[in-house]
């Protein structure tokens, strides 16, 4: 419809290899010396003015990390990362202790303006078409390299009892909540990257929705890597107390650079009784150029814990960026009747490599999960869905439905599906379907016989292919995602 049209127009205006968000912000930064050791961790902790327990937690993680091996099971290839050749902390100067948005460096504000992220506390306009435009409020936490530079609508949220702040602030302001939940979903030693993150995480968002509260607006965090050779290690912790609801959005971009940059995040979600968390991501880190030069290495551990009965966690992701994506947003379905969902669109073009999927761990009775994954590979990319669905002994009447479709555009790319389905309970019912195909010649001909050009026909059919997932996104994100999908496939036809 309108969005498709708009997309195609937009695609035409863009040259191949033109990543829209590839600019660099010229701003003075404060950096830690290159490399990783205990002193660097102490430096980060001191920068954040952290209590001793937090530093101890980090140092313990670092000790464990040194004994760990980088995982090699994913279908991604990249040169060995020299973890000593990175900066672990970089922050724009003068971002500490800002009282209001007026105090934020105008250069930073301009950056977010260019990225289309509203840092002003205003209603934003969004909608898929003129007829159903909606006015919504979105609170934004903007993370720039290693620090949060601004968080909007904090006061209004506070009135509703919602805590939404940088995690570095939460460590100081709400230590009892952080101590209770941090590392309770993704243990410190969960995996190589999560352990590294535990040692060196710099910023990210903290959300607490109190009992019975429906969060009055969408919350979002916008991640930007700016500085060269800098790793971003964000940490997000969201707790939805009994009977509460929150919808959280996450977006990410980075400048176009020839070197690879590392991003290793950890996101932990905790949903208590009757609570629901909806977590949406549009990941658009710089993917590298068409020859595979540059781009973000995205190694992310995201996990949600439906800790009590009737809890629900829903992950929706649109993955179009990054040179390497290694990411499996998962749900631990512990509480009885709890529900986990994973909706994913993963698009790879150029030389991108994606190994992504989910884990649905059914531990409690009557738990159910649903996985809808749509992979699109183009160019010379590799796109793998890897997923685990498991029912443990006590997970009576667990249910899973998985639909996993791949679309190939061009004959130089790969699409792979690696599901693990493990059932230790007879009453658990699991269904899994997967297909791989290309856009059929008949569909293309039908569109063209009705006057729709080749590129537009591909856009139309692809949009149809991913529709089930797009529908899961909040509306203001859906439009963005749809545009992004088409831009990502630019140059893949013909």
């Amino acid at each position, binding site marked *: 419809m309108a969005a498709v049209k708009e997309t195609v127009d937009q695609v035409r205006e863009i040259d191949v290899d033109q990543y829209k968000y590839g600019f660099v912000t010229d701003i003075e930064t404060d950096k830690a010396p290159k490399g990783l050791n205990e002193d660097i961790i102490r430096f980060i902790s001191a920068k954040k003015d952290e209590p001793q327990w937090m530093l101890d937690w980090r140092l313990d993680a670092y000790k464990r990390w040194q004994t760990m091996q980088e995982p090699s099971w994913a279908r991604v290839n990249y040169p060995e990362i020299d973890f000593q050749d990175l900066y672990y902390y970089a922050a724009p100067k003068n971002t500490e202790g800002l009282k209001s948005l007026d105090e934020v460096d105008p250069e930073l504000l301009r950056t977010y303006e260019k990225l289309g992220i509203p840092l002003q506390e205003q209603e934003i306009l969004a909608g898929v078409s*003129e007829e159903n435009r909606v006015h919504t409020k979105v609170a934004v936490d903007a993370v720039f390299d290693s620090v949060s530079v601004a968080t909007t609508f904090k006061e209004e949220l506070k009135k509703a009892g919602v805590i939404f702040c940088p995690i570095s602030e939460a460590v100081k302001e709400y230590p009892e909540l952080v101590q209770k939940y941090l590392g309770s979903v993704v243990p410190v030693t969960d995996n190589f990257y999560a352990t590294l993150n535990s040692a060196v995480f710099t910023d990210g968002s903290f959300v607490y929705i109190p009992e019975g509260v429906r969060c009055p607006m969408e919350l979002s965090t916008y991640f930007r890597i700016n500085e060269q050779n800098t790793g971003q290690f964000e940490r997000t912790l969201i707790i939805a107390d009994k009977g509460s609801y929150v919808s959280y959005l996450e977006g990410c971009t980075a400048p176009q650079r020839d070197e690879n940059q590392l991003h290793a995040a950890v996101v932990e979600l905790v949903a208590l009784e009757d609570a629901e968390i909806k977590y949406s991501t549009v990941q658009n880190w710089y993917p590298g150029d068409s020859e595979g030069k540059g781009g973000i290495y995205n190694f992310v551990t995201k996990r949600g814990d439906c800790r009590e009965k009737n809890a629900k966690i829903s992950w929706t992701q649109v993955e179009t960026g990054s040179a390497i994506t290694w990411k499996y947003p998962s749900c631990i379905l512990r509480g009885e009747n709890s529900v986990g969902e994973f909706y994913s669109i993963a698009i790879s073009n150029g030389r991108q490599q994606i190994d992504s999927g989910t884990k649905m761990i059914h531990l409690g009775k009557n738990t159910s999960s649903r996985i809808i994954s749509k992979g699109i590979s183009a160019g010379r990319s590799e796109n793998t869905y890897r997923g685990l669905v498991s029912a443990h002994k006590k997970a009576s009447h667990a249910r899973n439905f998985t639909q996993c479709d791949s679309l190939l555009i061009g004959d130089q790319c790969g699409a792979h599906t690696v599901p693990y389905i493990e059932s230790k309970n007879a009453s658990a019912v699991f269904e899994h379907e997967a297909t791989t195909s290309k856009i059929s010649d008949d569909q293309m*001909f039908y*569109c063209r*016989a*009705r*006057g*729709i*050009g080749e590129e537009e026909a591909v856009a*139309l059919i692809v*949009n149809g292919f991913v529709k089930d997932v797009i529908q899961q996104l909040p509306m203001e994100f859906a439009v963005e995602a749809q545009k992004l999908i088409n831009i990502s496939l630019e140059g893949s036809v013909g």
Partner: protein
Amino acid sequence: MLEIKNLHAEVEGNKILRGIDLTIKAGEVHAIMGPNGSGKSTLSYVLAGKDDYEITEGEILFFGEDVLEMEPEERAAVGMFLAMQYPIEIPGVANMTFLKTALNAQRQTRGEPELKTPDFMKRVKELSAKLNVTQEMLRRPLNVGFSGGEKKRNEILQMALLEPKFCVLDETDSGLDIDALRIVSEGVNALRSEERSMLIITHYQRLLDYIVPDVVHVMYQGRIVKSGDKDLALELEEKGYADYTGGAAA
């Protein structure tokens, strides 16, 4: 309007069309009949520009312009339309979205302004009511889960909306019951005009009771072996194709 001269076409080395000559003037409705495998559907696909067919000889002119040089979408934009025997399903793409995208793509190619959403909606509603295409069918993904009759009505809806100058109806009657056949025929007849021509491909004379042609052609082994007025169709219904197939198919 349309001139086909000595058209030869092959699929994977098999000669299907072996010298078709056909001229259709503005406002005329022609029907092509013939036994299975005579090349009727191939002719319709060649007119619309499907990839799999190789044109080895001959030409197709539309208002004097060489059609064979045009991409399928260009043919659509200059006003050629093929109502398909087996309309294609496209999951996830709402019928309405498809209609609007197609209409505006054609308008854009012709340098006409986009039809605004309210005007478009009004137009679709009017046409769909006549063709018994429900709102629900407009919302559903294109042709997915449509019955045979629904698919054919949807084809005619597209034809009515896109207002082509020349329409090919490939076995539009197949899979239709009498009521559906009547609705579809009424839809087609409503589109008959001095400026619009049609080529109706069919197996049976039945459809031609509803859409009365000006000229009837018999096609056999990739050639038009006889042409006549509408009575030829009745004759074929009675006697079969035996006179033209050398008695092979009675």
